[in-house]
C-alpha cells in the first residue's frame, strides 16, 4: 500500500508543481490574465488532505485552488482551459483562475473574497446534517481569512449544530505582504476555534504524509457526528502572493530555509532513501507530469472562447425590463 500511495502523492505534487509553472509561463506570455495565485511550496496540503477525502465529499476553496480542483479529478485540460478563459474550461471561461467549479466533482468553487468559504461550507454542512447524509465538507482558507468575521460566525454555527465540516487552514504565514504575527494576536491558528469549542490540531504542511494522516484522523472526528474540526497546515508559498507580487518582503534567509523543506523534494528523497521508489520510477513520473501539462496547454490554446455574454445569469433568460424575453 505504502509504495502506491507514495507514488500517487509524488506524482500529484509533480503535476501540481509543473501545472503552476506552466500557468506562470502562460501568464508571462499574456495567454492567462487576471489575478493568478500559484501554489508551489504548498502542494502537500491539497494533495495530502484531498487524497484522504471520499469522492462524495464536497470541497470549497479560496482563489488559490488549481491544485485542489486537480486533486478532485477535474482534468488538467479543463483547469488550464479555464485559466485561458476558454469554453472548454471547467467554468466555461466565465470564472477564471479564482473561480474553478465542477458540479460533477462536488467542487463548489473557487471564491475570491477572503472569508467566503466559511459560510458556504456550513451551508453545505447544514444541508448534509439535515438530510443525515454520510458526506462531509472540506473547507479551505488561508491564515489571513481567520480574522474575518465569517470565520468566527461560521465556526460557532458549525459547532452549535454539530455540522460535518472539516476546516483546513493553509497557513503560509502571509496575507499578501503581512506576516501572521503582524495581523494576529494569537498566531497558532488551530487554537482559534476554541471560542466555539471547535477542536483543532496543527500539522507540518510541508510533509504530505503527515497531512494525509492528520486529515484522516480529522475526518474520522467529523464523520463520527461530533461536529467540525479545525486542521492547521503550516506551509509556505515559494512565489509571491500572485503574479503581481514579487514577494520581496521576505528575507533570502527565510526563503532558503523554507525551500530546504520543499515538500516535493522531501518526499522524493525519502522515497529513494526508504527504497519505495527508484530514480527511474521518479523520472517516469516527472515525464508523465510534464507531458500531461504540455497537453493541457495545447488543449487550452486550441479551445474556442465562450461567446454568449448573457448565458446563465439566471436559470431562465431574463429581460430586466419585461421579465422573460
Amino acid at each position, binding site marked *: 500500500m505504502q509504495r502506491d500511495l507514495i507514488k500517487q502523492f509524488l506524482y500529484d505534487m509533480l503535476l501540481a508543481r509543473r501545472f503552476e509553472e506552466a500557468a506562470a509561463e502562460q501568464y508571462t506570455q499574456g495567454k492567462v490574465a487576471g489575478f493568478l495565485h500559484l501554489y508551489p511550496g504548498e502542494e502537500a496540503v491539497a494533495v495530502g488532505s484531498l487524497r484522504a477525502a471520499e469522492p462524495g465529499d464536497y470541497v470549497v476553496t479560496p482563489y488559490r485552488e488549481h491544485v485542489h480542483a486537480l486533486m478532485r479529478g477535474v482534468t488538467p485540460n479543463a483547469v488550464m482551459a479555464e485559466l485561458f478563459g476558454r469554453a472548454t474550461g471547467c*467554468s466555461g*471561461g466565465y470564472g477564471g483562475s479564482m*473561480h474553478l467549479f465542477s458540479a460533477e466533482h462536488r467542487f463548489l468553487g473557487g471564491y475570491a473574497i477572503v472569508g467566503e468559504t466559511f459560510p458556504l461550507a*456550513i451551508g*453545505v454542512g447544514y444541508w448534509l446534517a439535515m438530510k443525515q447524509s454520510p458526506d462531509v465538507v472540506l473547507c479551505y482558507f488561508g491564515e489571513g481569512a481567520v480574522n474575518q468575521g465569517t470565520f468566527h460566525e461560521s465556526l460557532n454555527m458549525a459547532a452549535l449544530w454539530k455540522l460535518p465540516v472539516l476546516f483546513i487552514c493553509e497557513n503560509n504565514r502571509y496575507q499578501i505582504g503581512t506576516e501572521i504575527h503582524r495581523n494576529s494576536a494569537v498566531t497558532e491558528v488551530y487554537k482559534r476555534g476554541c471560542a466555539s469549542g471547535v477542536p483543532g490540531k496543527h500539522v507540518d504542511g510541508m510533509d504530505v504524509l503527515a497531512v494525509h494522516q492528520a486529515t484522516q484522523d480529522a475526518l474520522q472526528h467529523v464523520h463520527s457526528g461530533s461536529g467540525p474540526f479545525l486542521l492547521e497546515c503550516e506551509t509556505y508559498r515559494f512565489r509571491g502572493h500572485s503574479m503581481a507580487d514579487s514577494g520581496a518582503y521576505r528575507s533570502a534567509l527565510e526563503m532558503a530555509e523554507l525551500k530546504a523543506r520543499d515538500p516535493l523534494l522531501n518526499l522524493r528523497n525519502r522515497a529513494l532513501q526508504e527504497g519505495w521508489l527508484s530514480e527511474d520510477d521518479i523520472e517516469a513520473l516527472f515525464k508523465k507530469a510534464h507531458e500531461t501539462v504540455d497537453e493541457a496547454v495545447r488543449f487550452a490554446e486550441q479551445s474556442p472562447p465562450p461567446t454568449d455574454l448573457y448565458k446563465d445569469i*439566471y436559470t431562465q433568460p431574463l429581460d430586466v425590463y419585461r*421579465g422573460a424575453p
Partner: protein
Amino acid sequence: MTRARDADAEMIAPAHPRHELMVWEALNLALDHALAADDAVFVLGEDVGLYGGSYRVTQGLYAKYGEWRVRDTPISENSFTGLGVGAALVGGRPVVEITTVNFALLALDAIINLAAKIRYMSGGQFRVPLVVRMAGGVAKQLAAQHSQRLEHTVMNVPGLRIVAPATPQDAYWQLTQAVREDDPVIVLEHELLYFKKGPFDIHAAAPPMHSAAVRRVGAHVTLIAWQRMVDVCLQAADLLAQDDIYAEVIDLRSLRPIDLPLLVESIKKTHRGVVVEEDCKFAGAGAEIVAALQETIFFELDGPILRVAAADVPTPYNGALEAASIPDAAAVVHAVRRMVGPREE
C-alpha cells in the same frame, strides 16, 4: 404541483376561513405551504423559531416542522445568509429571514458576491434557489439606523430577482413563487404593512411573479409606486378625483425585473407619469424607472415624468420630522397638480 397546492389549500382553509388576511398572516401561510409541499425548503434567521419571528411571520412553524427546518440563528447575518447560499448549491431551498434591511447590509457579501454570482461564474453548473426576506422602510420613529430602504442597492445586481409585495394576496403569491424559483429572490417586505388587512383568496390564480398591477384605473396621470407608497398613491388619487383629475395607480410589485410594458401602456393613455418612492430620490429606484420610460415613450409625454421621493436625509427620530422626510398623499397631489395645471372644462 397544482394538485399539491389545492390539497394544501383545503388543509389550511379551515384554519383561515376569512376572506381577509393581514400581510404577516399571508406570508406565514405561504411559508407553511412551502414547508409542507417540499422538504428541501427550510427557514432560518434570528428569532424565527421558538419566538415566532419578529413580525410574527414564522409563528407556529417551529412547532410544526422542527428545529432543522425552522432554525433560530445567532446574530451573524453574513454567515447565515451565506449558509443559505451553500445549502442552495447542493439541493436545499432555504428561506433566509433577515429581520430588517438595515441588518442586511452586513449580509451583502453573501447576497451580492455569492448568491448573485455563482451561477454565472460557474458557467451555469449551479442553481441558487435561495429566498432572502427582509423588512424595510420607514416605520414609526425607529431613527436613522432602522429606517433604511435598500431597493437601489440590490436592483443594480444582475443575478438577483426582487419582489416587493404591497397586499396580503401578493405577499402570499410572490413568496410562494419566490420559493419555487430556481434563482435567488429578495423579498422586500415593509414594516408598516405587516398588520395591514386586505382581501385574500387562496384559490385565485397568481399572475407572474414580476408583473405589475393596475390598482386604480385613471386617465390623466399614471402614478407608479410599490410597497407602502401604493397606498399613498391611492389616497392621492382619491383627493385628485375630487378635482376631476383621474390618476391611474400602478403597483410595480417587482423591482427586478420591472414590468415596463404595463407602465408604457398606461402612460400612452395618460401621457403623464409620477414615480412615488419612499427612498431618497438621488440615484434611487425611481431614477431607473423614469429613465427607462423616457427612453421608451418620450414622444408620448406631455411633460417630464416626475419623482416624488424621500428627502435626501438620514431618517430623523422626531415624529413630525420623520413624516416630513417621506412622501405623503399631499406631496403626490402637489406634484400632479404641477403637471396637470388647472383643468379647463
